[in-house]
């Protein structure tokens, strides 16, 4: 889909922007859902399930609104279950594998710290509906950031094994985090209209928080110049297809099924 803001029959830039927000939430929520029944302890199993449902709740609100903005009669379910890989607009970070608990916690920390700052800013959006969604989401994401951040410190500053595992998770995921802050035309258009923000504005504060926690966790930020991106434009890693085959199986096999 090419970006043509404010064309007739729907606000394409806003639609695209809402899809990006919603797809990040849906795909990360689906990833966390994979932990259910496999958590390291029963308490963490529930905690990961709760966070998954927070994210899927955000996705539902964003897709419902996106469907109305698009104006083609698509429901939240149509948008979640009936698009294929190239139509998804999530960043590459959220589709990366869970790995072990250390890797999952790193991913949640990197994304949660970003998302809580993002939704805090979007709470003041000139778009009242998006502002309302953001005001709910900011509390959820602030908790995810805190919960995962504490686990990063516990594991990083824990045993030799936990330190090694969480460092490996950080090494693997760190390159993918930068895409969160790369602005494109859609972001800039939304920022100019006061609806969204330019994500590159968030990077300094994010880096300060992340560096602080990484330091307390006695972990080391990897040095790499590799910055994979493209998820926001629909170019994904191989992971997304597998995620969608789990996520969408029921609606693909039994179209329109309800219970």
């Amino acid at each position, binding site marked *: 889909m090419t970006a043509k803001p404010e064309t007739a029959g729907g606000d394409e830039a806003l639609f695209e922007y809402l899809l990006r927000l919603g797809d990040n939430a849906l795909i990360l929520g689906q990833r966390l859902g994979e932990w259910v029944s496999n958590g*390291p*302890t029963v*308490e*963490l199993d*529930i*905690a990961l399930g*709760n966070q998954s449902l927070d994210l899927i709740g955000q996705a539902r609100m964003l897709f419902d609104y996106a469907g109305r903005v698009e104006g083609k009669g698509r429901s939240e379910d149509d948008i979640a279950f009936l698009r294929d890989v190239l139509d998804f607009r999530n960043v590459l970070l959220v589709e990366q594998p869970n790995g072990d*608990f250390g890797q999952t916690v790193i991913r949640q920390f990197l994304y949660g710290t970003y998302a809580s700052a993002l939704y805090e800013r979007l709470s003041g959006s000139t778009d009242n509906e998006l502002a309302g969604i953001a005001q709910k989401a900011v509390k959820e994401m602030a908790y995810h950031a805190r*919960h995962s951040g*504490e686990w990063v410190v*516990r594991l990083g500053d824990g*045993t030799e*094994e*936990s330190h090694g595992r969480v460092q490996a998770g950080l090494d693997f995921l760190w390159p993918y985090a930068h895409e969160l802050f790369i602005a494109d035309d859609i972001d800039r258009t939304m920022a100019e209209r006061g609806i969204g923000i330019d994500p590159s504005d968030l990077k300094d504060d994010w880096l300060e928080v992340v560096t602080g926690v990484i330091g307390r966790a006695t972990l080391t930020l990897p040095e790499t110049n590799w910055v994979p991106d493209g998820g926001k434009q629909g170019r994904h890693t191989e992971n997304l297809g597998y995620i969608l085959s789990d996520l969408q199986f029921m609606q693909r096999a039994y179209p329109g099924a309800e219970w």
Partner: protein
Amino acid sequence: MSTNKEWPLYEVFIRSKQGLAHQHAGSLHAADAQMAVENARDVYTRRGEGLSIWVVPAAEITASSPDDKEVMFDPADSKVYRHPTFYDVPDEVECL
């Protein structure tokens, strides 16, 4: 996690929206008190039950012994005069 070391047990107390006092909600395992609060939040308040959480290491609770049950509690059984049932409540009193 590969370690099987048991985390200590914490007792969880929740104060609900209507309640004035914290009430015992259950118990859970956690490595430290902060983790216990967060685990309690996820396990016991996810349906909107709580406004405040206390966690207490179960090992810190001093309990009466089950063996003392008769000595401790039976003497209260025969003291009917301690129940406020021997006077009439005037009709005008509503909030009792």
